[in-house]
């Protein structure tokens, strides 16, 4: 990539990768990538899912050994292996949280470097170091609290404290804001700016371009494992970055809204109570996209899971009306049989069997339609799965590949495809595009709009405010397990949603 007029830095280089190549089987995940990040710099690595970002980060952190090329810190080439990288001061904050839920905050922060005295854990020192790390990032949380009791946002901060406690020179963060609300994201971004100001080199991976523009100095854009360009943020625009990422012109027509024509009520929930849900009434009509907004921990996921019976309700009723016939939703199996589809938040653990093929995953909810007398109809399955894979735009549409071999965006398409086969009357989606690249995200949005246009009732929970605003015909904002307000498209904007979601907490947290 030496022909590109790539942006250089005048800072003192801390971490550098030289012509790194990594293959998985026949596929090249990272191809001749070089990157250099200076002290005090926040450097973005952006690209669609499958572009090789996470692989590159794992190489930098020594978790993966490159097939050729190497990584050096302060000009010194590192030995392969995670240990050498840790000792050289490289700390990776994982995309998937790696904390141990049943251990305390202090134990988690010092995990792997637990201080001991005569072979016994020195808990006073453990708490001191953990407390210092939390102070450094400006987060206050009880050191003795079990991580399982913390919100997702606090867990993310503990994860960062864990990296900071090791006094790193280089901090690598992989999608740290994926689960955070705007206010929490703000907090995290200014935290990173403070850390960089102290001379830390920070590598920041994100799908969220506005965040990159807010804190980063330069951005390395990856596509298909190769560097497309290294850009200086001050000299470019978000649209230019996105164009480079996707390699095609992609219009960000966030404001074009569908003209909804809602029909009869399909889902009706009354007085729903469950853990973290304190009495909710909700209707979703045919052809309508209803959005659920609110902060993480407000009870949004819990709400929809309780309505459709994934998790138990303590009170309330929910009914589904299909072709004029109204049925009670008692339990999840009953909900599915009544024409409800559920796309869960946790794609990898709840949405897909990653070991199984795309065709098998698609067969799972459609097993009755695809079998005769208890025997699976294999010809029919291949045809059925291929048709659905094409409907959702799976790329490549090879239904005999294991689902786990696909990128996050494609995996999410498979989750949606498997439910479309049932021609559901109501689709419930929890974070439909979390960790999904920009291209796949807009395809999923288009798909949802088309479904609604065809008369499907759609209920969407999302932390992604622009997504919620773009998709929803009506937005219910949830706080403390209650609907705090309902906004029409004319009333809904980032400010009005946030005002309801955070209430007075907006003022106190910033």
């Amino acid at each position: 990539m030496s022909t590109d007029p790539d942006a250089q830095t005048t800072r003192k280089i801390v971490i550098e990768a030289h012509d790194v190549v990594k293959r998985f089987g026949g596929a090249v995940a990272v191809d001749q990538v070089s990157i250099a990040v200076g002290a005090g710099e926040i450097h973005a690595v952006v690209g669609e899912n499958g572009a090789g970002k996470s692989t590159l980060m794992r190489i930098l952190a020594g978790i993966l050994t490159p097939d050729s090329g190497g990584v050096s810190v302060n000009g010194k080439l590192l030995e392969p292996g995670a240990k050498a990288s840790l000792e050289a001061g490289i700390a990776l904050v994982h995309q998937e949280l790696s904390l141990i839920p049943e251990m305390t905050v202090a134990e988690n922060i010092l995990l792997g470097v637990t201080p001991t005295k005569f072979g016994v854990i020195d808990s006073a020192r453990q708490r001191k170091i953990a407390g210092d790390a939390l102070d450094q990032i400006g987060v206050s949380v009880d050191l003795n609290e079990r991580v399982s009791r913390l919100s997702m946002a606090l867990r993310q901060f503990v994860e960062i404290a864990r990296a900071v406690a090791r006094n790193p020179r280089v901090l690598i963060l992989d999608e740290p804001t994926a689960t955070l609300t705007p206010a929490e994201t703000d907090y995290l971004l200014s935290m990173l700016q403070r850390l960089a100001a102290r001379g830390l080199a920070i590598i920041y991976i994100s799908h969220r371009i506005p965040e990159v523009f807010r804190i980063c100095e330069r951005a390395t854009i990856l596509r298909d494992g190769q560097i497309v360009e290294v850009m200086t943020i001050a000299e470019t625009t978000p649209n230019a970055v996105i164009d480079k990422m996707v390699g095609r012109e992609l219009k960000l027509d966030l404001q074009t809204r569908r003209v909804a024509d809602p029909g009869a009520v399909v889902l009706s929930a009354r007085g729903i109570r469950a853990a973290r849900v304190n009495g909710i009434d909700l209707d979703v009509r045919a052809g309508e996209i209803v959005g659920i907004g609110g902060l993480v921990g407000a009870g949004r996921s819990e709400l929809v899971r309780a309505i459709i019976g994934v998790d138990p309700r303590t009170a309330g009723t929910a009914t589904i009306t299909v072709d004029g016939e109204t049925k009670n939703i008692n339990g999840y199996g009953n909900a599915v049989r009544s024409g409800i589809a559920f796309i869960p938040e946790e794609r990898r653990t709840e949405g897909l069997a990653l070991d199984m093929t795309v065709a098998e995953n698609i067969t799972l909810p459609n097993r009755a339609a695809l079998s005769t007398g208890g025997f699976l109809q294999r010809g029919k399955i291949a045809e059925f799965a291929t048709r659905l894979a094409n409907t959702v735009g799976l790329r490549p549409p090879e239904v005999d590949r294991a689902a786990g071999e696909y990128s996050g965006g494609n995996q999410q398409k498979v989750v949606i495809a498997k439910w479309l086969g049932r021609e559901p009357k109501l689709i419930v989606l929890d974070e439909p595009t979390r960790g999904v690249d920009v291209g796949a995200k807009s395809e999923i949005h288009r798909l949802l709009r088309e479904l609604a246009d065809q008369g499907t009732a759609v209920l969407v929970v999302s932390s992604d405010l622009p997504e919620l605003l773009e998709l929803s015909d009506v937005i219910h904002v949830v706080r403390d397990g209650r609907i705090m307000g309902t906004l029409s498209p004319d009333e809904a904007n980032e400010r009005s949603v946030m005002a309801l979601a955070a209430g007075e907490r907006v003022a106190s947290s910033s």
Partner: protein
Amino acid sequence: MTHTEIIKTPTPASIAGGSGNSASKTVAWVASRGIFIFTAVLLVFSAIFVNGFASSVNIIDVFHRASAIGIVAIGMTFVVISANYIDLSVVAQIATSGVILMALSPTYGVLGAMAIALFFALLYGLVNGISVGFLKANAVVVTLGTTGIGAGILSLVTGGTIYYGPTGGPIDAFGDARVGPFPLSAFVLIIVAIVASIVLSRTKFGFMIRSYGSNKQATRLAGVNSGGVVVGAFVLTALAAMIAGFVLAAYSNTAVSTMSEGYDFRALAAVIIGGNSLFGGRGSIFRTFIGVIFISVLSNILVLSGFSFAWQQLVTGAVIVFAVALDALARKAEKR
């Protein structure tokens, strides 16, 4: 080309998919395909170097011994693939069915005795399956418990009596019958293997077992009655153990409450050595079948070469540890 792919077990390429490292690729390949090579090598080695292995009398004996273990192991495959569970209660199940067949045939006729054995097999399957699938109890502990209860009752009721079938009776005749050089029990094994293989790979129920073993939560969220899937897997295991009890009793025309000692371990050994993953989701009946051939031939040549039972135990144990370690290493290699 594509249709058959759907039911295949993962190819080495897909198992090694997460890794570019050649050592971990090798591990994944050996874990996935090694057993076929090992079995072929063992057979050729035995035929050439082990005196008496290739004789027809010996081959028949290997088949006889392989059939009861094989039938149990094939049943156990369902439980293993369904999600990291094992069924340790097969020991009591085999003995119960064998003893019922021999003890009650004189009174109720062979079919009547088989019907009673079927009742108890279903009882085992349901108790194990409901405890694990619906009450979410630990499978190892539950089946350890039910085997204790079952073996205890059987021992109390029979008082250790050995039941002999009448010489020349239908059970005895079945045990002695041959088709060509092969005992009928070998055909029972093959029929059970074919039926089980079709159930696992071609039916909706088998698909749900594999899917559940691969990802429990995703399977539940697809609207599958996951408790029912677990019950089904334990019932199939119980039915196979019942058939194994019949075959074992017919072979010697006797039954006693202790007739099936060690069958839990050996059946599990066959499942694991065949390369079925203890982590669930991956595997096939054919693999179990090959695993059975492997351990049966292995213990046969140890006997022929004059090694004691203790040596057989030791070698089988070592092979299991090797197979389990390989499975775990392959998983690890894949995750890298």
